[in-house]
């Protein structure tokens, strides 16, 4: 099915199941510990052996020698896989560095060996007996220095590296109010609960991997490519994922090494990435340096906007696209954005929840607060004054550099209208609910005992992406509808919204729907990433259900355009027939995909919100504790308000981590993230998370999909950290432009302790 015209009324609009706050259908499995996560699939293959990964001890260099003698002789050891004996290996399309290093080492804790043994303890013990000699090479580990030799990156997910509208330089120089500041955001880790984990088993030349992965088809492709085997010979199964946040978008070392280990051991092998390897072995959100320049009239109209961002990655890597939102968020006739990429020999950077916007909004939305103060304007009024209904800067994709490229020239729309944009309403609703008028605009003036109190605000913005997604639906003779798609549920609630969609489409109760996810034998979905999963995967289910409805109508002799599917019946013109009757003995199966035309080019599709935060900063110690948070979101139809709320409060919590504590500390001498465990890399704990509230504006977006929905899972993190930073400023009068805002950056500028 192709979606190239705005949606009109369709069965989803009945809203009998969709749009209702619905408990997760997989909830009982998870709360009783019976949801089978990858590492616990003891049932799927007999005689599983255990693998333990050895990570490189240097950031860059070569392995001179590796002595496996003692490890091989250790009790229980079955095999040891290294680059030397693993056979020819390619590299996945989506991997920057090789997943099995050696002899060249590309980054710290890059896997260089897998020890396979009868027990986990034996594998671990033997791994420590491997002796490796390295020849260290000099590397670049400091972004502030490498920045000076950065270059424009290839255009990728975040669009082209540069954009320009009007005359920024002229407009900035002549603006009566100017603002120019530089912000930094640190490297961050996904730090999800469930480490990357896989069990691999070979059957002849066919490989099956039970794993924890967000994007099944991507990873099947990269597994096949890396091993040099046909895609058809690889099966990935990932029904439950214990958190991903972008860290499990790709094939990673656990899956590849489990496959190699299983081949070497000639039996199934399971591998979980040790916690201590997570930060350096896998991907992370790269640090940024961002410069913001704003020029405005004295009334507060922005006339000039510039946002430049620098980040680093291994050779062949990609930038953190931190300027994306600045092209779209505020009006202003003269503007420029630029992204530059430096080569760093730190572990590879890649997507983490709301790549681009999450760190970009951390800088932009402090800058807006600072500019509002300069102008003497209320920060909300300043933002509303610069609201826009058309995209102010939508740079064209540069022509393909490949002369053989057969891709048709895409039509470019320089200023497409937003399909829906209710940013102002988000601010107004939030201001009212949060009690914005109680905020003292003069910083450092509100106090409760030891605590300096402050309120801050920031916009939330994240683009909405739509992705092709397929599903198969089966109707059986009991009226049960089974949906199969390789979509994943990474804790987001995919199982439930997919069940809701099928129930709505086929007119059956939720408990009559069975959802099976995360298996590469199922039709290829959009996967979970970029907050596209909810809308795009359900649209694929919608397409398949439309086909099934037609088939049912035809079988039962109904006019498919008129038949009503409700209560397990198909009805039209006084006739009512049980749905199950259409199934017959063998059931009725239909498969389809939703594909998209160019509505996402003609219209700018984005999601919007406003974050409100109240903080307390300890007057003596500078410790910041968040007191209250509110997010108001306008993000199309909310398919399941309960799981959508969970997504947003989770994202707000993660944004709090970014604001106050999360930072992978770089050892700039040796080139690695030092705090590589959950004791050193602090994320918020329960005691940090105060009262949180989420309001969804009632909205449908017919431009986005037949579901009229958009994403919320990443919107919730965008802007939170800046709102906290702005609240800290309001509390203390101290402006910190380097995240995270830890107390050492505040205390010198706090008033003396009485």
């Amino acid at each position, binding site marked *: 099915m192709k979606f190239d015209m705005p949606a009109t009324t369709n069965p989803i609009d009945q809203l009998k199941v969709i749009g209702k706050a619905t408990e997760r259908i997989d909830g009982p499995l998870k709360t009783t510990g019976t949801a089978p996560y990858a590492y616990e699939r003891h049932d799927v293959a007999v005689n599983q052996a255990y693998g333990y990964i050895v990570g490189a001890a240097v950031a860059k260099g070569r392995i001179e020698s590796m002595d496996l003698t003692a490890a091989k002789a250790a009790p229980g050891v079955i095999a040891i896989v290294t680059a030397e004996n693993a056979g020819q290996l390619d590299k996945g399309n989506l991997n920057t560095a090789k997943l099995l290093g050696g002899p060249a080492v590309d980054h710290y804790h890059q896997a260089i060996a897998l020890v396979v043994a009868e027990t986990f303890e034996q594998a671990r013990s033997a791994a420590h007996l491997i002796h490796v000699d390295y020849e260290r090479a000099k590397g670049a580990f400091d972004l502030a220095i490498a920045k000076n030799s950065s270059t424009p990156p290839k255009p990728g997910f975040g669009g082209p590296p540069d954009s320009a509208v009007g005359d920024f330089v002229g407009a900035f120089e002549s603006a009566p109010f100017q603002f120019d500041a530089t912000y930094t955001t640190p490297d961050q880790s996904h730090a999800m609960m469930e480490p990357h984990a896989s069990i691999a088993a070979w059957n002849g030349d066919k490989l099956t991997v039970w794993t924890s992965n967000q994007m099944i088809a991507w990873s099947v492709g990269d597994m096949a490519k890396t091993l040099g085997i046909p895609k058809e010979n690889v099966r990935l199964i990932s029904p439950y994922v214990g958190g991903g946040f972008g860290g499990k978008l790709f094939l990673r070392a656990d899956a590849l090494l489990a496959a190699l280990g299983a081949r070497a051991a000639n039996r199934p092998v399971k591998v979980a990435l040790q916690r201590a390897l997570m930060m350096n072995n896998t991907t992370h959100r790269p640090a940024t340096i961002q410069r913001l320049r704003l020029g405005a009239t004295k009334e507060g109209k922005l006339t000039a906007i510039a946002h430049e961002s620098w980040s680093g990655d291994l050779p062949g890597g990609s930038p953190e696209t931190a300027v994306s939102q600045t092209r779209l968020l505020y009006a202003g006739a003269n503007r420029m954005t630029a992204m530059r990429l430096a080569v760093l020999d730190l572990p590879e950077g890649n997507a983490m929840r709301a790549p681009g916007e999450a760190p970009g909004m951390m800088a932009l939305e402090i800058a807006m607060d600072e500019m509002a103060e300069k102008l003497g304007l209320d920060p909300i009024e300043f933002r509303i004054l610069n609201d826009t209904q058309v995209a102010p800067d939508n740079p064209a994709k540069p022509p393909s550099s490949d002369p053989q490229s057969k891709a048709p020239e895409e039509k470019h729309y320089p200023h497409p209208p937003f399909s829906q944009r209710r940013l102002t309403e988000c601010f107004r609703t939030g201001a009212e609910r949060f009690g914005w008028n109680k905020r003292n605009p003069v910083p450092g003036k509100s106090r409760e005992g030891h605590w300096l109190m402050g309120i801050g605000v920031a916009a939330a913005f994240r683009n909405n992406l739509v992705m092709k997604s397929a599903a198969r639906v089966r109707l059986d003779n009991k009226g049960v509808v089974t949906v199969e798609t390789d979509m994943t549920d990474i804790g987001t609630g995919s199982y439930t919204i997919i069940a809701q969609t099928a129930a709505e489409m086929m007119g059956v109760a939720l408990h009559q729907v069975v959802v099976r996810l995360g298996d590469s034998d199922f039709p290829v979905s959009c996967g979970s990433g970029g907050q596209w999963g909810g809308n795009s995967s359900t649209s694929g289910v919608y397409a398949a259900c439309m086909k099934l409805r037609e088939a049912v109508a035809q079988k039962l002799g109904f006019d498919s355009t008129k038949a009503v599917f409700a209560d397990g019946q198909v009805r039209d013109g006084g006739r009512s027939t049980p749905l199950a009757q259409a199934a017959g003995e063998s059931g009725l199966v239909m498969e389809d995909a939703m594909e998209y035309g160019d509505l996402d080019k003609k219209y700018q599709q984005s999601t919007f919100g406003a974050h409100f935060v109240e903080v307390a900063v300890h007057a003596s110690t500078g410790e910041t504790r968040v007191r209250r948070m509110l997010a108001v979101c306008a993000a199309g139809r909310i398919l399941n308000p309960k799981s959508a709320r969970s997504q947003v409060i989770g994202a707000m919590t993660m944004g709090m981590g970014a604001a106050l504590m999360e930072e992978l500390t770089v050892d700039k001498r040796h080139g690695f993230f030092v705090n590589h465990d959950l004791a050193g890399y602090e994320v918020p704990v*329960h*005691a940090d998370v105060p009262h949180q509230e989420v309001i969804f504006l009632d909205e449908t977006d017919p431009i986005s999909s037949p579901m009229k929905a958009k994403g919320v899972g990443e919107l919730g993190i965008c802007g939170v950290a800046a709102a906290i930073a702005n609240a800290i400023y309001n509390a203390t009068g101290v402006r910190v432009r380097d995240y995270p805002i830890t*107390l*050492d950056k505040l205390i010198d500028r706090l008033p003396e302790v009485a």
Partner: protein
Amino acid sequence: MRPFTFERAKTPADAAAAAARHPDAKFIAGGTNLLDLMKLQIETPAHLIDVNGLGLEKIEATQEGGLRIGALVRNADLAAHHRVRRDYGVLSRALVAGASGQLRNMATTAGNLLQRTRCPYFYDTNQPCNKRLPGSGCGAIGGFSRPHAVIGVSDACIATHPSDMAVAMRVLDATVETINPDGSARKIPIAKLHCLPGDTPHIETVLMPGELITGVTLPKPVGGKHIYHKVRDRSSFAFALVSVAAIVQPDGTGRVALGGVAPKPWRVEEAEAELPRGAKVFTARLLAGARPTPENAFKLRLVERIVASVLAEAKGAQV
């Protein structure tokens, strides 16, 4: 983890004697620190002596009016004990400021005193660390040193002792009681238990090989206002950047010990004479000779601010 043998000792003397028989032995109490370090190949004992069955989990009054705390008393039980809460509030508060409920249910008094540093280079066996591998160098000096010590450090090591409980015990003038493999017992003032790193940061206490801690005694209560102020980057479940244990008397005299700033709980009795003169003067004395790194110099200012706040709080309470 290196394979090891395991035994359950029955009496304190047995435990100490068993340790003498196995030069590579370690006592295991709650295991919350030792096991983590064994999994990471940082501690590699060949033999474990389980001391949980020694009958050392009692808290009793002493004849002198103080309290004797068995070495195996769990941190959670110690914090909740009525006499601790009434007479040694600083200890109770320090304990509940540490770790998490689950950990405090396992962690023991002796284990807490002997827990090892949280220096991230100590935890990464690829990195140099004089404490883990004498002579290999110190990764933290010149590297990531924000959480590290600012005083009592050496050119060999700048690690902190991470305990909260020990800081309160230091301000309470606790005494550590031990038994040796030869059956002899001794009493060690807590001030003398931990060593400064000097050239030998791997030697962390004055305990002899096989010496078992049997208990800790607290002297008669000294009254005053008991405060434990722990400062960290998140609200809970984090080690102290700086902590201050204080007992302040109505006349403004008192005692102060610091956590998070030194290789041992940091207290300078002579400096306490300056307490009535205010935080600035007192802190200057307390931290005289400090050698911070650029990354952790903020701790010096932080100490002064917390002490000021603690003194203000103590005064406020008397009004």
